């Protein structure tokens, strides 16, 4: 797909991979709505994109809250027009330090599912209808290797990401014929706040920098050869380069 001029919504855009993606896609000319739970946290990112001549707007929303979804989609479409690229990047790790399933509260699992699965479902449901009508659009789900590996202590997050991968495949199966692409992306281990929260004692040297991963993901978006519904491991594509 062509990035320049594309109306793009990125959730979880105030830091980490979301911030890096916003800056990268902004540099490539995407028109951006950036979403975070705190608007103030988005403002430095918006400012950097605008200073570089790009277009970006900050909207505050909690993806885990049903009441926030329609206002977010409505305000985003008012600002940019119909959304053509929707990137579900916001994630809820669950309580830290990470804990065994037997020590995980049901409410903690509910919260992880609300932000990591229901939120993306709800937001896609509002936005993908217009994509199906207009016969174009791309939905990206930021996943994790925890979605395919059963790492002890990662239960709530892991379960939500496994379901998110499958949600991505289902969107592709149902909307592919209407010109809508959906895929999930495992960015690999990155040097982010979320990684520090999950694994505070890990050696940070081998971790990928979010901006490298963002550049790789942007290249992937431009590539027409990705099979609809695919789950892509960016690391295996050389994200650490």
């Amino acid at each position, binding site marked *: 797909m062509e990035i320049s001029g594309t109306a793009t919504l990125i959730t979880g855009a105030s830091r980490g991979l979301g911030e890096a993606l916003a800056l990268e896609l902004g540099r490539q000319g995407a028109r951006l*709505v950036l979403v975070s739970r705190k*608007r103030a946290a988005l403002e430095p990112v918006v400012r950097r994109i605008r200073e570089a001549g790009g277009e970006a*707007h*900050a*909207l*505050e929303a909690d993806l885990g809250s049903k009441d926030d979804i*329609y*206002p977010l*989609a*409505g*305000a985003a*479409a*008012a*600002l940019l*027009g*119909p*959304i053509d690229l929707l990137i579900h990047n916001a994630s809820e790790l669950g309580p830290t330090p990470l804990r065994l399933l037997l020590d995980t509260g049901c409410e903690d699992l509910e919260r992880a599912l609300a932000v990591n699965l229901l939120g993306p479902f709800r937001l896609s449901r*509002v*936005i993908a*209808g*217009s994509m*199906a*009508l*207009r016969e174009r659009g791309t939905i990206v789900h930021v996943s994790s290797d925890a979605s395919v590996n059963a790492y002890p202590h990662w239960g709530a997050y892991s379960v939500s990401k496994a379901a998110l991968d499958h949600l991505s495949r289902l969107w592709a199966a149902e909307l592919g014929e*209407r010109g809508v692409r959906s895929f999930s992306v495992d960015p690999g281990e990155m040097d982010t706040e979320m990684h520090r929260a999950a694994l505070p004692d890990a050696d940070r040297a081998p971790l990928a920098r979010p901006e490298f991963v963002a550049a790789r993901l942007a290249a992937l978006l431009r590539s027409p050869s990705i099979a609809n519904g695919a789950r892509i491991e960016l690391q295996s594509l050389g994200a650490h380069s």
Partner: protein
Amino acid sequence: MKAAAFPRARAEQERLLVIDPAWSSFADHRIGDLPRFLGRGDALVLNDAATLPASLRAGPELELRLMSELDDGTWLALCLGSGDQRVPTEERGTPPRLAVGAELSFGHGLSAHVRALDPDSARLLVLEFQQRGAELWQALYRAAVPIQYSYLREPLALWDVQNAYAARPWAIELPSAGKPLRFEIIFRIAARGVTVTHVTHAAGLSSTGDARLDARLPLAERYELSPENAARLRATRDAGGRIIAVGTSVTRALEAASTSGALRAGNARTELLLGPGSSLRTCDGLLTGLHEPGTSHFALLEAFAPRALLERAFRHAEREGYLQHEFGDSCLIATGSLSGRSISPAAEWREAG
């Protein structure tokens, strides 16, 4: 006719009255039957405007209903006095008289100045919001609720007033003809070789509660038809297919886009009014809600079918318990809908007399 008092959960079970002007006949169906009445080469045109929450409170004595965004970013708004959505609009209290320059605060960080007053009515004014861009839209979505009328049982949520395929929030009230169209139905229609496409039309306020102001409705409304979609519809027409508008708002937009003859792409405002005797250049048929004789919506239907047939069909619908208004049942008016089918149309005729 009874009003639907709330959005219904099982949209596919909603009813569809099919009226064929060529056969001067009508028949009872369910909305899920709609694909049967459209065929290869036809086009179905949706209004993809999302519905803005357009009712704002500036205290217990004053509600403002946004009517239309003007070209300079200000808004035309209607003032209503004491009472809420459960009180019929015409029985609402007299709103306080506002002066030019007055500042209004709606909470949630949203505020506006009164920029101008309508010369004919103190209830119409031009508002300028003090917020811009993302700050404005975020605050507006927090402060405002959907416009609704007294026949509805419960307060509407924002999702109650959205069509499944909506994008830009241009509509002040739900473009309701599209509400029963779940994607299951839309995809079945597309699979029959029907072109499913769209315009964006800023459907406006349907009632002010003041007969003198209502006579000015509908106001000029903005629409956009993309070059790509205009070309698809011209191709439909050139190949002899029918163009079916979903809703009076789509009809208004498509006919406005073809006032000069051929259908042209554009982003414009239209003041076009359609009614009995209007000659339609683009629309061959209409999917709409049920509207009672005497309303401006009914007058528009008369551009598609003779009044006597519509009255007969709607009397039948009333007897059969069809529901009206934005969450009510549907009606397809299209020549050729009941002809050419395997069963004799005569078997389905309802001559209500």
